[in-house]
Every structure is written in structure tokens, then in C-alpha cells.
């Protein structure tokens, strides 16, 4: 057991350690990527679900299977703000008028989740209890336009002037990776419907 053997042992230990360090770093990166990609996939899936529901409902503003119950559909939007809208529709296509109310909740309602920005998006049908799911919605902005394409300013005092609307929805991952170091770690997905027009608002 000479110096050369000792140097061999120390050298191989250092090289082995470096190799192990590289492998552990790789593993850490893989775990992070796995987490981030997973979060992005979840955010995207959540966004698509929210958009499906919102589009389905908003396209039916002013619709009723028994049209005589909404003879003047231009009056179907009952209330409209930047984060909420209430309108008449025939939700289940049974010929009876339903009222649908979309409203974005406050950040305080979801303090239990790590993401400080996520909010509940409520869908309230008639006078039933609010239905909401935490899909990580952080933005639900509505902008309204009249028949000439001019943006209506808030507050909207004449909802019947609404002809089209722009919908912006942003969904973030409710949990993030390495949150202690950066809030940027919440994966997000954004969707914008530039001009959604419920055809029934133009009837008659």
C-alpha cells in the first residue's frame, strides 16, 4: 500500500463522487421537469375544460327552445361586469328559461392552496347553490362590445347594448415546483376568445 495506491483511491473517490453528483443533479432536473410538465399538462387540461363549459353556456345567451319565452333576446344579458356576467338562457334545452351567473371568486377563498393567485370560478344556475371547482383559474376577464364593435366601458348600464364579448381566461397550476425560490414556478395556460357572439342576441 503505497502512495500511488492512496492517490488511486482518492482519485477514484473524487471521480466517483463527481459522477454521483452529476447523476443526482440529473435526477433532480428530471424530477423538476416531470413536475413542471405535469403541472403544465394539468393546467392545459383544466383550461380546455373551463373553456368548453364557458363556450357552451355563452353561445346560448338568449336562447330558449320555446322562443316565445324570450321574445326579445337583446334583453337577455341581465348584468355584466369585468369578472362576472348574468344572463338568460335555456340551459337544459327544455323550453324553460334559466338564469346563469358566472362569477370569479376572491383569492382569499383559496388560501389553502400554495398558488396565491388561484380563484374559484362559480357557475350559479337559477337560485341553486353555487357550483365551483378549483381548476386554477387566475384570470376571468370579460370585455364587451356593441354592434359597431366599440368597446363598452364599465360600469355597463345598458346590458342590451352588448353584441359581442372578449373572454380572457388564464389557468395556473395550483401547486408549483420549488415555490420557496420563485413564484414563477406555477405553470400556466392562457386562452382568449377574441369576439364571442351569441347568435341569439341578434335575433329579430
Amino acid at each position, binding site marked *: 500500500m503505497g502512495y500511488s495506491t492512496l492517490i488511486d483511491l482518492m482519485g477514484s473517490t473524487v471521480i466517483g463522487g463527481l459522477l454521483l453528483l452529476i447523476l443526482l443533479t440529473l435526477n433532480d432536473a428530471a424530477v423538476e421537469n416531470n413536475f413542471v410538465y405535469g403541472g403544465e399538462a394539468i393546467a392545459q387540461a383544466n383550461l380546455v375544460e373551463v373553456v368548453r363549459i364557458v363556450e357552451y353556456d355563452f353561445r346560448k345567451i338568449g*336562447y330558449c327552445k320555446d322562443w316565445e319565452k324570450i321574445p326579445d333576446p337583446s334583453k337577455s344579458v341581465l348584468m355584466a361586469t369585468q369578472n362576472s356576467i348574468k344572463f338568460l338562457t335555456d340551459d337544459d334545452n327544455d323550453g324553460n328559461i334559466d338564469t346563469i351567473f358566472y362569477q370569479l371568486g376572491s383569492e382569499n377563498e383559496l388560501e389553502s392552496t400554495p398558488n396565491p393567485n388561484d380563484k374559484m370560478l362559480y357557475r350559479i344556475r337559477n337560485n341553486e347553490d353555487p357550483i365551483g371547482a378549483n381548476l386554477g383559474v387566475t384570470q376571468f376577464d370579460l370585455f364587451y362590445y*356593441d*354592434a359597431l364593435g366599440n368597446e363598452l366601458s364599465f360600469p355597463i348600464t345598458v346590458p342590451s347594448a352588448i353584441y359581442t364579448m372578449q373572454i380572457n381566461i388564464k389557468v395556473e397550476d395550483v401547486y408549483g415546483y420549488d415555490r420557496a425560490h420563485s413564484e414563477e414556478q406555477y405553470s400556466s395556460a392562457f386562452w382568449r376568445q377574441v369576439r364571442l357572439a351569441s347568435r341569439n342576441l341578434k335575433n329579430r
Partner: protein
Amino acid sequence: MGGKGTILIVLGFTISFLAFGRNFLNLTKRSSDNVIDYFSEARAHNIAVSAANFACSELFQDKNWTEGFDEIEYQGGEFSVEVRDTLVDSKIIEAIGIFGEEVDIVRITLQPSSYAKFAWYTGNMSSKIFITGDTVWGPFHTQSELNIGGDAVFWGKATTLKGLKYADKTASPDFYGGIEHGVDIPLPVNYQFDAERDAAIDGVNNHGGSSYFEATDVWLTFHDDGTVSHRVGSGPDSSTYSAPIREDLKTFAPNGVVYLKKGDIYMSGTVKGKITVGSGESSGIGSGNVYLVDDIVYPDDPMVWNAAKQKYVPNNDCENMLGILASNNVVIADNDANVLDKDIRVDASIFCAQGGFKMENSTIPPSGTLYLRGGVVAAQEEIMALTKKDAVTSGYKKFVIFDERFLLSIPPTFPNTGKLEVMSWYE
């Protein structure tokens, strides 16, 4: 030993990374599937909407079009359209859009469009203006510029073909239902009341009625018990007319239509029932007019004020309807009943094919208000009031409440546009 350990570690990490890699691929695939699914749904939906629009376009050009479309390739998918008639004079379009495995359906109900859907429609405003005190609750449209000479108030949606024109720089109208320009809703030139004439003649020939007249003037007084007194004669002096015949409205006009060819109609009273009164086939402005010699109303209110909603709402208990048609003008007669009692009340939907709704004498004393619960469709705007410095010196301010029942039901044979309109659009 060290070599084996190294190999095991490398193998272990390799397996671990392979598992991660597979997971990454799965995530990527799921994300792609999400996007592709949404894209396919949206594309199928757009194809169905386009197909529905194609079908509407065909029906707007030819209301008897029933061919539909069958498996037409479009935008990488295909669509089919079926057009069905219903038992209530409406049509249903069912458009199916297919893209990949996604299928979407758009279902539209269309119905003949009536002119009774306006609170106030004017073909040509010429130099006539809306003044301070004029109030219109309901849809307004003009095919010309909308002339504003004061602080008129429009509570329903207002549309114009050629925009707004201020006759007075201080004018400040309110459009609480919004206003839209460039909307083209033409009135047919020289509209003839063929359907009304045929209905009245049919009532006389086949149902024992007597509500068809020719080359005379007719005086009609409606009573709140559902009867009407009718006389024939000439001119505004009723004392020169024949003795009145009072009979049930359904006996007099079994099809609900009174029609006069080449003459003027003088009318007033309380209408109980559904009736359309038409004065057509005029030869010049000396005939084809309807004179309102006093109030003409229903026994019950067609629209009532709802304090909670802060607007007028239909009174569903009111089943009475009156349509007044004139090939020339509907005129507020210059007589004691209208001048001494400053206000005039009219419950009806009025249609003036070539003329307008006017005063017989535009210099009658400063008057009150025209309370109209129904609507006016007129080829021309006529003078209803004269003003000086925004104050009415003679005539009437307009207070118009659209009878919303006319969105669902109209007086017998009331003119329609001859075209279909979309009543509901399901997608």
C-alpha cells in the same frame, strides 16, 4: 466489486431516466390530445355554424327553399343540412357539422317577420324631428337619418340606416337601449293590402260578414262590449251618414278584417276583440286614409308599469288587438274630441304604406301628448308637433310604449315583411 457497483448504479439511473422519459412522452401526448380534441370540436362546430348560415342565406332569398345540403365537403370535414316545415308556419334548420370523429349540430327556428315588431318605424324622416318630451319605449328604426331636435328619449334599441342628425346643437337625446347605424330594413314600395282585402271579401262571401266596402267613407265606433257601430257616407260629418248598424265584431268581420277600397275610414271607441282595419287601393291622397276622431283604446291596458323592473311589461290578461292600415295616412282628426281633450290615446299597431301618422291640422292649439300603446310603421315621418325654442306650440308630444305582445302575436293578417327571421338559434 467497484466495477460491478458502478455498472449497477449506471443501470439503475438508466432505468430511472427511461421511466422519466416515458412519462414525459405521455405528458406530451396528453397535452397534444387535449389540443387536438379541442381543435376538432371547434372545427366541427364551426362547420355546423357555417352550414347553418349557408342554409339561412338560401332561405332569406327563397323562403320556400327546402332542398337542404347533403354531405358537402367543407374545411376538411363535411356538413349536411335539413330544412323542415312545422305546423305553426315556422321552419326549422338542422345543420350537422362533422370533422374527424367529432359531430356538432346547430338548430335554428325561423318564422315570418312582421312589421308589428317596431314601436316606431319611419321610412323617411325628411325634415321632421324628434323633440324634447318625445319618448319611445321599444324598438325604433328609420331608413333615413334620425333627426333630433331636443332631448328625446329612446328606451329600446334604436337603429338607423344613415345615422344621426342634430337639428339643434343643444339636443341631447338618450338612447338607453343603444343605437346602431347602417341597419337596412326597407319598407316595400306601394305595399298593397291584398291579404286584408281577400280576408274581408271571404268574410262577406262565405261567413255572413259585412266588413268589405268600396268607394265610400266608413264610420266605425267600437264599443267595450265587443260590438261595433258602422255607417257609410262621405266626409268628416257623421250626421250625413247612414243610420248606424251595431253588431258583434265577429258577426261584422268574421275573419277579423275590415277593408275599404277607395275611401276613408273614421274611427274611435273601445276595441274588445282582435281586428284589423284597412283603407287601401287609394286613388290619390283623398282616399286610403284612416281618421282617428277620438281615442281608440282597449278596455284593459296592454302594457303595465312594473315598478320592480322599472319598465313596462305586457299584460297577459289583455287579449284585444287592433291593427290600423292605411295606404296613405293615419290622421288625428281636427275636431272637438281631440282638440278640447288635449291628449289622444291610441292602442294599436299602425301601418302607413305610403304616408305617415299625422295631424289633420298642424296648427291646432298647444296640445298634450299622443299616448300610443302599440307601434307605428310609416313610409314617411309626418309633423306631430310644432315647437318654438323647444316648447310645443301646437300638436302632440309622442309617448310611445311598444306593445310587446306583438312580438308573439299580431292583429289578423297584419303585414309581414315577406321574409323569415331567426327566432332561436341553438348551438
